[in-house]
């Protein structure tokens, strides 16, 4: 089966400093990959490079078989960014309008909203238990509620690849559990590929099937089970390998 993402020898630099060096890996349909690594390791940089938000210094990135700069079918990718702080408190957008933004990737110019789009928004809002917030302004909601709205925006187009950057930071434990179950279900039932950046190294093993550990360069990419058995990784991580593995079934 053709890879969804094919990354070959990618390096990214911020001015003089190299943020990522010689990264290569591929994402297959149906993959559930946990992106793990210390702060400043380049996880978000890697995601932004994949999404075309950052230029790459060298290497190549293919999305769904096309070079990144020629790729246009953005409806196949759903993205939940890391920061909620970008939300402008003055912006008067209501929840329904924000979720609709997730459907724009499927539309040709001039983009218009149809009744079918509103029905899709209703459905995802219902599923994420935020239907009662639809007419509320995003800026009036709590951090956790805002996170759910942005999650709905990422999910509403039913993408083939979902990319989450630290999705559980603003969620309470119940919502976090619900979130992980929901995306696991999407992964298993619909075959949606999932990339999830997380600090939750002990938790991610419950759900993700593959692990990508990055620290400026690729330290490990492969199955969780292989990671836990790997002697090379034991030598590299020491006790930390156990923390990543011990909750994994």
């Amino acid at each position, binding site marked *: 089966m053709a890879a969804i993402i094919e990354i070959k020898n990618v390096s990214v630099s911020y001015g003089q400093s190299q943020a990522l060096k010689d990264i290569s890996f591929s994402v297959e349909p149906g993959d559930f990959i946990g992106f793990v690594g210390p702060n400043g390791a380049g996880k978000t940089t890697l995601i932004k490079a994949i999404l075309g938000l950052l230029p790459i210094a060298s290497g190549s990135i293919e999305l769904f078989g096309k070079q990144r700069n020629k790729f246009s079918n953005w409806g196949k990718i759903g993205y939940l960014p890391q920061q909620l702080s970008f939300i402008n408190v003055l912006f008067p957008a209501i929840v329904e309008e924000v979720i609709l933004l997730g459907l*724009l*990737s499927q539309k040709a110019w*001039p983009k218009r909203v149809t009744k079918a789009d509103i029905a899709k928004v209703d459905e995802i809002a219902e599923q994420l238990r935020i239907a009662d917030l639809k007419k509320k*302004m995003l800026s009036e909601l709590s951090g956790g509620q805002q996170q759910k709205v942005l999650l709905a925006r990422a999910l509403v187009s039913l993408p083939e690849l979902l990319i989450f950057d630290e999705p559980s930071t603003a969620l309470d434990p119940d919502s976090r559990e619900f979130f992980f179950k929901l995306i696991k279900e999407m992964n298993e039932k619909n075959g949606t590929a999932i990339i999830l950046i997380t600090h939750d190294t002990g938790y991610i093993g419950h759900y993700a099937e593959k692990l990508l550990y990055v620290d400026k360069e690729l330290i490990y990419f492969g199955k969780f089970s292989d990671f836990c058995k790997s002697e090379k990784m034991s030598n590299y991580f020491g006790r930390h390998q156990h923390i990543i593995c011990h909750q994994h079934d």
Partner: protein
Amino acid sequence: MAGISILFVINTIEMNMINFLQYSFIQKAFFAGSFIGIICAALGMFLVLRKMSLIGDGLSHVSFGAIALGLFFGVYPFYVAVPVVVAGSYLILKITEKAKVYGDAAIGIVSAVGISGGIILAGVSRGFNVDLFSYLFGNILSISNLEVVLSVLLSCVVLAILYFYYWDLFSATFDEEYAKTTGIKTSKINTILIFLTALTVVLSVKMVGVMLVSALLILPAACALQIAKGFKFAIILGCIISLVSVLLGITFSFFLDLPAGATIVMMNAIFFALAFIYKRIA
């Protein structure tokens, strides 16, 4: 007796209003002013939320230079102002992108060049200072037929572009990075927004003058943001506030013999104050 007096006063006001609405310069001012007011409010919402409010101020200063250029060469100022202000807006974009300068500083640079150019041309010519300085405060009541036609046509162009790019503009204004991940060419959207602003500024100079253009862009949007829930509703509300301000401003300026541009801006400011108070007590 008192009843008869009240009836007499009401009749007088009615007669005055009917006469007032029959003046062709009032009809032209209402017509062109309504279009300009609406595009200013709609566009202003995007500018205010993107923290680009002062671009209107900068571009109005460019229009001052452009009008001086037109008067200097004896060309109808409107014809010179449109291309020069559009070029000025392009320059702001390019300086921001290429010259390691933030947007506000780029606006400051282009704005200063516009004003300086205008002052130098006025100094050199020594002939058209009165004409040029009349553009500082504008006068919608002296709008010509040609200006009405141009204002309405260009306003329709601006409104059509806003309508067709509404969702792209909304997404890029709400979260530019996310908009890019949905395939929206945000740099193209930014260029469209700034060009539309340039056109709108040129149209607004006739109504409120160089000094007050930014008020037309900022106040209706700022007022709507106090009370509106929903982005589309905020834009519609801003347009209504702006439209009512233009109509009331022109009416008051006629009956009270006040400068029209400043009266329109003051009406907007009163609506802003009312919206602010309403939000605090509601």
